[in-house]
């Protein structure tokens, strides 16, 4: 208890003293931003544990992953926690973005934070993909081959970008080392600073968005002790859920990468299944580069499509129909093509 009294000011710094009740309602935010931060934390610490065994060379990458998974004490659980933590982060971050759109959380002055959040989502996806690559199993190797070759399709600078990414004229030791460096250090730094800045910006922009009083908002507040307690319970339950997932649904790992052609069906990680499905149908420059960038560009437009008017802080407000229609359309496209690929 003395420890708590001494340090509570640090923990208290996470939240303002009083939080508007209508913004802190579970059915308003579903705690998705918090879940994302929680998932990122779990992933970071389990990732740290994995670096104690993982060897980023083509000869040893898969073998050391097998060692972690099959031999090291509780290695399978830690690796699975890392995997499920990362998947939870992708899902929670995406749903967080959707929540922001449907409740109007991007409204001024929050445009900049929307763009930061969007960048963090992209970082999360690259983080996830680069982690998938580090398994160096057959599926990951071929997905990396397809993914990196997409860069070569870019006119004029494609080859240079490919070299910068892969560090060689073909996939090999330098590609693995670069993905390892980015996954473990580069993206972690970017995501870490990004998350802190995202949260700081949120406080600066007035805290969690909420309905105005005439829109059903209440002048009531909850204390940060109450909020912290709720968060503590949520973290405990989520931890248990991740532990159960990690125990009974271990992270996948295929046989070692076999670079001879035709040895494996190429299967993108689930987050990019929609891109893979597009690649089957249209030229790869369009499917792999232009369309994903266009989706990103459209998402970046969200706070500029709808800047003022009624509907702030209200789920599915009709007055803000433009961004909601856009995100629904994008969701249908991404989910539809993903399902099409998954059910092939």
């Amino acid at each position, binding site marked *: 208890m003395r420890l708590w009294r001494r340090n509570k000011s640090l923990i208290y710094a996470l939240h303002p003293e009083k939080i508007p009740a209508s913004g802190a309602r579970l059915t308003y935010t579903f705690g998705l931003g918090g879940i994302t931060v929680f998932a990122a934390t779990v992933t970071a610490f389990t990732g740290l544990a994995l670096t104690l065994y993982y060897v980023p060379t083509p000869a040893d990458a898969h073998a050391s992953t097998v060692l972690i998974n099959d031999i090291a004490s509780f290695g399978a659980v830690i690796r699975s926690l890392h995997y499920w933590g990362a998947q939870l982060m992708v899902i929670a971050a995406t749903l967080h973005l959707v929540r922001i759109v449907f409740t109007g959380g991007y409204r001024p002055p929050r445009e900049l934070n929307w763009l930061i959040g969007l960048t963090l989502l992209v970082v999360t996806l690259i983080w996830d993909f680069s982690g998938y690559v580090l398994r160096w199993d057959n599926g990951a190797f071929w997905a990396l081959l397809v993914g990196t070759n997409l860069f070569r399709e870019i006119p004029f600078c494609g080859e240079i970008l490919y070299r910068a990414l892969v560090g060689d004229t073909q996939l090999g030791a330098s590609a693995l080392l670069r993905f390892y460096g980015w996954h473990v250090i580069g993206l972690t730094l970017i995501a870490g600073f990004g998350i802190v800045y995202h949260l700081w910006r949120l406080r600066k922009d007035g805290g969690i968005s909420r309905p105005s009083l005439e829109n059903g908002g209440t002048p009531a507040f909850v204390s940060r002790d109450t909020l912290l307690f709720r968060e503590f319970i949520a973290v405990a339950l989520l931890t248990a859920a991740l532990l159960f997932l990690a125990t009974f649904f271990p992270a996948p790992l*295929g046989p070692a990468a076999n670079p001879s052609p035709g040895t494996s069906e190429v299967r993108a990680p689930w987050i990019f299944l929609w891109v893979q499905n597009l690649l089957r149908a249209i030229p790869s420059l369009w499917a792999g580069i232009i369309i994903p960038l266009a989706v990103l560009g459209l998402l970046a437009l969200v706070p500029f499509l709808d800047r003022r008017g009624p509907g702030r802080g209200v789920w599915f407000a009709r007055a803000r129909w433009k961004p909601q229609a856009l995100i629904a359309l994008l969701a249908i496209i991404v989910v539809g093509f993903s399902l099409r690929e998954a059910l092939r």
Partner: protein
Amino acid sequence: MSKPWWIFIAGATVLLAVGAIVWRENHRPWQAWQERYNLQPNVTPIAIGIKTLVPTRTGQPELCLTCHVGIEDISPSHPATAVGCVICHGGDPLALDAGRAHGNMHGGGNPSDLSVAMASCGTTDCHGGNADPEQNHVTRVLHSMPATYAGGIANVRYTFGAQASPAAQFAVHAVEDTSKPLPPRALTSLATLGTLHPIDAQLQQNCLTGGCHLWSPAKSEPYYYRSTGCATCHYLFDDEGLYRGNDPTIPHDQPGHGIVHRLTTAIPFTQCNHCHNRGTYSLKQMAFLPREDLPPAGPPLSAQMPAEGRRLVEYYQPVGDFTKCEIELNCIDCHTAQEVMGDGHIYGAKPDAYYVQCQTCHGTLTSAPAVETIRDANETAMRQARIDGHADFLSVGDQVVQTARGELLWSVKQTALGQFVQIDKVTGTTYKVPLVLGSRCAQDGSDQSAKYCHQCHYVTR
């Protein structure tokens, strides 16, 4: 709900999850296999734990024996401590998950399947890539008639008018022999059998599937069980095809497994029977007609039926003359490695490749069999004696029979008294070899068929 309730529920859930992790850590699949191993009768129980093997040949740790605890050493020539598992089987040596451990394996459970044998058995310094072609066993077998099926294909196509002469042109898979000079009657190449002629499709269907050659898996029926590739002959199956060893992961009640995980060169006639004594090949119907007189597979036939019946069942039926032989030899006592696995060259018909005859060991009216002296402990004949498990039968300086093609028959030697003695390669029984020279035999040197010699040399059983 009040705060304490929430704390209780959250705490209990976390504890339950941690309990699940600990339980899972102590109930991994390999632990279950080891517990099953310990439950088997006739085994010394082992301590549960990961079993690491570091074969001297690779120096790389392998954990295969963690699950495959109790599996038999594949042969005295390939001890696991030296060779390990992965050189032959491929797979992932560190994985303790069945799916991953067995990914990238050579030929599934059988690394000697001819589709992969060059990458497993036939790697350099093993049974391939040697300066002495005799030791490149995989190449020899790939060129041999049990693998090409050249004679069978040629016979059927000729009979049905698909080719103008009975000379072999096709094989199951194309083969080519670039060595020079070629021995008499050897061919330079055979093409893969395609569908040039209308009957070829039927030929493929009826004669190249179902276990007619070394590439093709056998019927999954009692008496037919066998492996493919090198293991067709060297990996012994019993009539029921059941595994009877100590590896808990190999099902003991599902047929289709060898008796134990063991390769041997001392191949008993029962193994040959899985292909060669199971029926007749009807040219007219272009079909295999299975025997119908076999008793249900089960206990050894000697326990099931009287001697003469057993011999009819056990010995090659289509040429019943063998069943009259005065002594019981094993097939490999006459059909040597050079005959069965080939000499590395391609032949199109059995008479072109097979050359061991009665007179090879019994001599002729005018001469004793040709003999040659063993000069070196490492020459092929000595090696074969060792590998077959009869090292003490032969020593340097012994004289052994030499065939017309120069192959030394290590199992037939001439004693100091001039007598010839043969050892059965499988059972180790020794026999005196009577000579034609000086006997009352009315041998016709030009007819050496089994039928001819067994006109006189037979016993009624």
